[in-house]
Every structure is written in C-alpha cells, then in structure tokens.
C-alpha cells in the first residue's frame, strides 16, 4: 500500500515531465491545512472580540472602571512571560532545522515551563477576583452596574478560553517531544513541529489584543 517512496511522473503532449503530488507526503499541504485551521481560530476569537467591542461601546465608563481594578502587575508579567515563551518556541524550531536536536528539545521544555508559569499567574489573578466575590453570577457582581457585570463575564470567558488554548498548546508540545523521540519528527520532516509553533504564535497573538483591551484601557485613570 505504501508507495510514498515512488514519485509518480506523468508526461504531457510535448513530453515535459510533471510530478504528481502524493497526499501522503505533502508538507506544503499540511502547512496550508494548518493555516486554514488557524484561520478558524482567528474567526473564533474574532467573534469574541466582536462581543467585547460591542459591549465596550455600550458601557464604556463601566468597562474603564472595571479595567482599572485588574491587577496590571500580574497582567504585565504574564504578557512578558508569553512573549518569552514564543521566543523559545521559535528558537527551538530554528535550532531543529539546523540539526541541533537536543538544543531544540530544551527550548520546547522551556516553552512548556513558561506556559505553566503563565497559567499559574493567571490562576492567582482569578483567585484574587474570586476572593473579592467577583465571579460570574456572584451576589456581589450581580449587584454592580451592567457594564461591570459584563466586563467580568467577558474577562473570565475570554481569558478562560485563552487559557484552554494554552493547555492544549502544552499538550501539543509534549506530543512533539514524544514524536521526536519516536523518530516521527526528523530534521528532514518536521512539519508537525512547525505547525505547533504556528499554533503557539496564534495563542500569543490573541493575547497581544486581549491584554490592552482588558488591562491598559483602564490604566492611569
């Protein structure tokens, strides 16, 4: 069944050869497919940002007020942590392409470590809000103005959705290391690693838009 080592060549009327792409061995295709998947992630988060923008417009003052109560230090730390994690991920890919496999694995592990730190910081941020009685459908939150209720509803939902994607990212990175050990990902065939790196960059991109809208708008007021 596996003819992936034989390339099919066919000829046109002038006798020119043409290669027939084998779907079992099409890295460009895999990358293209993954980009379309990232596309769907963009639309998913885009929908969420649409909801956020809609309510920001409607309840601007409430949103700014609520934004000012968020912990800018923790938010800021997380922003830099995520940025640094993408550095390690990207550098790991470059190392791998140059044949430096163990360096690459170390970088992936570092990315995982930083991601876990991100999640931990986020956990403390959430706990702080929850300890103040601010969580969806809480008595304290329901007593506040509409815009404040919605701000925090969106805060937990969007950072939560983002966090879920980080957890998935960590799982994917572990999987990449396993595949490297198994020899499925090699320095000649590493499209899976490339795709996971792309995924991580997308997760970062979402945060690039998320944190100014949630944290910076209320800053310094």
């Amino acid at each position, binding site marked *: 069944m596996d003819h992936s080592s034989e390339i099919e060549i066919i000829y046109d009327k002038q006798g020119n050869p043409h290669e027939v*792409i084998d*779907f079992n061995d099409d890295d460009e*295709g895999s990358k293209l497919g993954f980009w379309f998947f990232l596309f769907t992630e963009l*639309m998913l988060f*885009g929908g969420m940002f649409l909801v956020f923008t809609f309510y920001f417009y409607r309840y601007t003052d409430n949103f700014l007020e609520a934004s000012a109560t968020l912990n800018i230090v923790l938010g800021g730390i997380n922003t830099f942590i995520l940025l640094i994690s993408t550095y390690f991920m990207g550098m790991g890919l470059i190392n791998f392409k140059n044949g430096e496999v163990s360096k690459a694995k170390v970088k992936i592990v570092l990315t995982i470590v930083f991601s876990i730190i991100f999640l931990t910081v986020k956990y403390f941020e959430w706990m702080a809000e929850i300890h103040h009685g601010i969580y969806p459908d809480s008595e304290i939150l329901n007593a506040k*103005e509409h815009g404040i209720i919605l701000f925090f*509803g969106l805060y*937990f939902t969007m950072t939560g*959705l983002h966090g879920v994607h980080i957890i998935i990212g960590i799982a994917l990175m572990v999987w990449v290391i396993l595949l490297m050990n198994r020899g499925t990902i090699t320095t000649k065939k590493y499209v899976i690693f490339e795709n996971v790196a792309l995924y991580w960059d997308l997760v970062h991109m979402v945060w690039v838009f998320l944190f100014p809208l949630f944290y910076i708008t209320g800053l310094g007021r």
Partner: protein
Amino acid sequence: MTHKSFYDETHTVFGHHENKILQWIFSIDHKRIAILYMVVMFAFFAVALLVALTMRIELFFPGEQVLSPDQFNQAFTLHGVIMVFLFIIPGIPAIFGNFLLPIMIGAKDVSFPRLNLFSWWLFLLGAIIALSSLFVGNGFADTGWTFYAPYSTNTETNVIAALTAAYILGMASILTGINFVVTIHRLRAPGMGFFKMPLFVWGLYSTAWIQVLATPVIGITLILVIIEKTIGIGIFDPAKGGDPILYEHLFWIYSHPAVYLMILPAFGVVSEIVPTFCRRTIFGYRSIAISSAMISIIGYLVWGHHLFSSGMSEWAKVTFSFLTFFVSIPTGIKFFDWIATMYKGSIVMKTPMLWVVGTIVTFAIGGLTGVVLATLGITTHLHDTYYVVAHFHYAMFGGVVFMMFAAFHYWYPKFVGRMYDETKAKIAFWMIFIGFNVLWFPMFIAGILGMPRRYFDYLPEFTIYHQISGVGAVLTLSGIAYMAYVLIKGLKNGEIASANPWNATTLEWQIDSPPPLENFRNTPYIDFEPYDYKDGVPVHNLYDEIHKGR
C-alpha cells in the same frame, strides 16, 4: 468486468481488520467515507421527515390532536436541527464531495484521509448527542433550531445537549472544509488549472471557504450560550445588561452563509448535469465559476435580513436590504447560463435532467420570494409567517434537496455499478414534484393572510390551507418512499452500468463503475476544458490511458 472496486478492498486506520464492519468504519478511503455519511444522513432525514409528518397531522385541524403545545415546539426544533445540521449542510459535500472531488481533479484521495474519517466520527458523535437529548431530562430543546436568547438561556429543556451536538457537527464541517480546500489547491492533476476544473469542484471550493470562515463564529456563539446557561456571565441576559439582538447577529453571521453552504454544491451538481444531458459544453463556464465565488463573498454581507423585525437600527436594515438584493444577481447569472446551455441543445430528458428542470422551477420560486422578503416595506408584514416557511422550503427542499436527488440519479451508476429503473424513477419525480407544490404553495397564501409560523394552533379560516398542505405532505412522502424503493431495487436488480453510461466528459466517467480503490492507476495530464463536446459526443476518452498497465 472482473476488476476490483473500492467495495472489495480498502485502507484502514488502527491496523488491518478482518471484520467487514470495521473495514468500513475505520476506512480512510474517501469513497467509503462518503457512503458512511450517506447512511447516517438518510437515517436522520427519515426521522426528520416523520417529525414533519407528525406536525402536519397535528395541524390538519385546529386544536390539539397528537401533540401537546410543548411537544410541538420540540418537534419543530428537532425537525430543524436534524434537517439543517445533520442533513442539508453536510449534505452534498459529505456524500458527493467526498466521493467525487478527488476523482474529478484526478487525485487518488483527499489531502488528509485520516482527518476525513475523523470528521465522519465527529459527525456521528454529534448526531448521537442530538438524538439522545430526546430521551433524557426534559426532552429535546424547544427553542427552534435558531436557539434565540434569552429563551434558550432560560428554558429547562436540553438546550446544552443540542448546542454541544451542533458545535461538534460544526467541527466536522470545518475539518471537511479544510480538507477540501487543501485538496483542491494541492492535488489537482498536472495541467488542471483552476479554470479547467469541473464546476462541481468550483462549488465545493467556494463552499469549503465558507465552512472555514463562517462556522467558527457559530462555534463561539454556541459556546457563549452554554457558558451563559452554566455560569451566568450575562452577555445575552437583559437583566445583566446583555443584548439578545447581539445573539441574533452572531447566530446569523454563520447561519446565513450556511444557506450558501447548502446551495453552492447543489448548483455545482446542476452545472454538471446540464452539459451532459444537453450534449454540449456549458454556456458561460467562467461566469458560473466566478459567480460561485461571488455568492460566497456577498453571502457574508447579508445576515441582517434575518433581523429586520428584531429592533435593529434603521441604518443596519437599509444596508442589509440593499446587500440582499445584490446576492441574487450571481444566482441569476447561473440560471441564465444553464438555460442558455439548454437552448437549442439536444436535450436528453433522463431522470437527472428531469430533476434539474424541476428544481429550476422550484428554486426560482424560492429565490424570488426571498427577494420579496428582503424588501423592507413588505417584510414586517410577512415576518414569522408561513410565507417565510414556504420561501425557505422552496429554496432548501425545492432547491438543495431536489438537486441532491438529481445528484443521486446522476451518479448512481458510478457509486453502484448498476442502473435503476428509469420509468419508475420518473414516476417518483412527478409524485414528489407535485406533492411538494401542493404542500408548500398554499403556505405562501396562508402567510400573506397572516398564518404565523411555529404556531401549534390557528384560527379556523386557515384550516383549508393546512389541509391542502397535509395532502401534499402525504403525496411528497409517498414519492420519497417510492424513490427510495426504486433506488434500492436497482442495487441488486439493476442493469450493470459501464464506466460512462451518460456519455459525460468529466474524469469520474473515465474510470470504472464502481471505481477502483486508488481511482487512477495512471494520473492523466489535463490540458482541456471539462465539458468538451463535439457534435454531441465527448472529445476526450481517457479510459485506456488511465488503466494502462493493469
């Protein structure tokens, strides 16, 4: 003809299997996956038809007959959810797209065969979750398939199950869309540029883009409703400052393009059948191809015409009405091209062509009544009446489903290797066509006179319309049952079909019926247009070239 077909051998995941059932449900062959989709979809189609019949029986007289008011709400929700998410949206791409796309472009499979199988498994999972919600708790959702907030966030029926099912089905749709787009970009046979692809492929291509672009938006919308129901964030709850109209925006941002998901592959089917049975090349190939892309694009701009009576701003209403008029233009182009192809062609009125002619009538009615509904002055009067119900059934059933029936009759010999009884198939067509119009045409009138949709009961003056519709429903269902009988009979008793019983030109007719596992032993080089006829006969015959060396 003792060649092996894809029914005799296959590729599977999780190793080799002796068991025949495992060889089907673990198969990564696009042709088997198409049939797997077909089996599940038909089962659910039958369920949804029975639900519809039950509603028609309930509505035959005013007052309560066989359903309580709450059960009626659940019935139309179930009917809508199954028909929209489990039958029509996956519909033609899942069955005919999966089976034919690789073959039509000269490829041996799709770009991601295992992902393709995974899509089917997701589809099955979504279907099971949806169906099982009928039997637990407070029963199936009663919100209508549109799940409008705030009712959907407050009702006690199994909305979360229905939403979860819809989300999983959406994932299956997205993965199929990704598969198809990449396949079309990467695996076309050498020489086949975009403007040498068959028009069915153009239809699938435009559809796949919509699947990828629009489905995630409903994904996030459904998730938000689930989150709202479980932890109460408040985004669609007016008591917390939320906006139900925002839900409607988000829902229809997907669900309007979704109707183009339904119709674009169907138009592609018509574009395949018309040249074959007119024995000449299609008129305006490029304009049909580009009109598919245009429908895809403009279709994103019109979702607000579902919100005309919601309380949207006047600015938004005017914008959407204007844009909706526009979207009818590319469809009009297609109709013009098809009719131009038929004009002075030597038409062979076999069953597939009969279905095409039928749908040209019914879909035209569906489309034109859509333009009526887009007119702001009239729409408020007709909103949520039977006029709307008649409109979308003419478009979805009289359009997509009729075209799907046409596809079944056209590609039947390719799938099965046999032919069905032509005369009986034509009788089935007439039963369905007449029954369909008796069922839905009165609803236009009832709607104008004020009969509201989704109503369990009605004023006595509407009785006659419901009764005529009821008779039409019985005739239509009998016709569908008869059609099923004819097609099933052909499986065992039909005449053996050759590779190209219709004398068509596209690549699927240049290989055996049914196709071998690998589709093409030798990939052909394509340097010609897809509908090349000369004096009513196909110009290119690639059968020998493809099978050389067997």
